[in-house]
């Protein structure tokens, strides 16, 4: 039995549940938007062994009967009525609530997509980028700086073909950099800004489900297709060389993930640049438009097939 742990308001969680229904895969939904009030959780640890039950409306599961867990907990709900007054208190209680479930997922023997401790690597994109160095994927020339003169030097060396993008988890997207944005973005006292030499080519989103790879080409005129009007984005299922696919499987494992969404760019001369590995990827957008069987692969892994 699969347990899906997410919010029904989240399109990916909803999509995955619909696909599980279509695939006739048994699952139970733990809806985080009504957790814990409509759920009963009791989990014991005795002599380094864990066991327990999770019960929702009309169902009850022994954790030992779980074959896999899909977790998608993106937005902590800090707005619940009756919650404490300060944001700090709400954040602390949300963290405590999340840690309770994470404690259970971390102790399970079955596959979890994704294990709680594996989710944090893309809180630092430069870390991810450098972590994969030495493999088959290229890293764009990057400058992280709060020094205007250095930013100008980098910009001129790249002949003005420079983008800037967030380093942390709270992404504000990728944007073209120009000297007239300089004073707003780079100066002593500001947080360092990540600048990258623009890489010419086609975006590829590559989903890895354990050892299966689903590559999608993304065509869009905008600098960041994630911020563009979805109607202006064209997706096309594609393949990548096996050396690149294997490298992405290796990266996914190295980050401790079962499911990843890796952002690449393929250059006209056949090189592949790595941008980031999403640890909670929104695969529904790609599957809906290409028909790739990402959910089915995930269902197989989580049912132990």
């Amino acid at each position, binding site marked *: 039995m699969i347990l899906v742990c997410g919010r029904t308001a989240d399109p990916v969680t909803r999509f995955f549940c619909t696909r599980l229904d279509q695939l006739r895969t048994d699952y139970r939904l733990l809806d985080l938007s009504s957790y814990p009030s409509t759920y009963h959780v009791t989990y014991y640890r005795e002599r380094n062994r864990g066991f327990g039950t999770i019960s929702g409306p009309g169902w009850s599961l022994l954790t030992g009967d779980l074959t896999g867990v899909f977790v998608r907990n993106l937005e902590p709900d800090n707005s619940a009525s009756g919650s404490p007054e300060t944001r700090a208190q709400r954040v602390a209680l949300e963290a405590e609530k999340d840690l309770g479930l994470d404690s259970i997922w971390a102790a399970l023997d079955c596959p979890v997509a994704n294990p709680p*401790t594996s*989710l944090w690597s893309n809180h630092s994109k430069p870390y991810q980028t450098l972590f994969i160095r030495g493999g088959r994927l290229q890293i764009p020339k990057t400058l992280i700086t709060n020094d205007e003169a250095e930013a100008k030097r980098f910009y001129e060396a790249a002949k003005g073909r420079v983008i800037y993008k967030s*380093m942390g988890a709270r992404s504000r997207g990728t944007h073209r950099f120009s000297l007239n944005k300089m004073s707003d973005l780079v100066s002593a006292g500001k*947080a360092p800004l990540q600048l990258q030499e623009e890489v010419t080519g086609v975006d590829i989103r590559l989903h890895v489900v354990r050892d299966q790879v689903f590559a999608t080409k993304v065509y869009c005129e905008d600098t960041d297709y994630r911020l563009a009007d979805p109607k202006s984005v064209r997706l096309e299922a594609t393949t990548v060389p096996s050396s690149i696919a294997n490298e992405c499987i290796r990266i996914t494992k190295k980050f401790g993930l079962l499911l990843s969404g890796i952002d690449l760019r393929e250059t006209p001369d056949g090189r592949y640049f790595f941008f980031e590995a999403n640890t909670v990827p929104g695969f529904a957008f790609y599957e809906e438009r290409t028909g790739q069987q990402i959910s089915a692969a995930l269902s197989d892994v989580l049912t132990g097939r």
Partner: protein
Amino acid sequence: MWILLGEPITALAEIFQSECKKVGQHVFGIAEFDENVEFNWEFDSVDSCSMLSARELSRFSDREITGVFVQNPPRLDADSAVESHHEYSQAERNAAMFAWFWNLRCPVVNRYPAAFWFSPRVPLSSWQQLVIKCDLRITDAILSNIERDLRSFAAKLSVNPGYLPLCGPDAYRISTEEHWHGLNKMRAICPISVIPFDPPVYIACVVGDRVFWNQPLSGARAEYDDRLVHLTRLSGLDFLEVRLCRHGDDFAIHAIEPFPRLDGFSRDSCHLIADALIALLQSRGSAKTARESRQI
């Protein structure tokens, strides 16, 4: 030059700096990449080079750094009503700092994995496999939002029950109905964790292959020292704090702190811990130099 990076460990930062001074080791503290730090870091598929300048220090390259002692991740403000630009900037600074120290070539204690650096706390159960490998034991516990189950677990214990918040290392004895009443209020918001709680709490601080205890440990101390050193090694860390309570004839772990607080240690012990950290960074530095000269 050594860098003392991150939010200071209150009990240790000053002692560490003064002990460094005694052995003639120049050390400079950077709490975060804030307005006092000018930071430039350029890298690609092959090279990586960073330059910093901060307050009284003139510009220096990462090649001049010979050791880094990482303390706590900079704390993110979460007090405002909505997520602010300030909070975004803090997250960006933190992301840069983490990637930077992770990629330095010099010895770094600890070169933390991302989960430790960014998550509010790594669940104790995430340590379970490592703990088992080291022949140690995590405390028995219940996590529940059902009062009946919590009470029944507590009633079966041979010692007092304790409430152990998942977000922190300290357990609190549950001994009155008022305590249970308070926990019931919490239970509506998040399941709570109850453990057998038999103080005193023994705190072990591991530095490399040395172990310091906050109080004398009767019985097989050497055996526990070896297991805790093994646990620290398997976790990829060099500096770790572990909290244990008696569990019959054995000890059970109820908290593992990848960011040691050392608040349970005397000032004298903190001096010894600082000395051990210095010796560790020195030995890692010499080993690295020896390796590099062999490569030449």
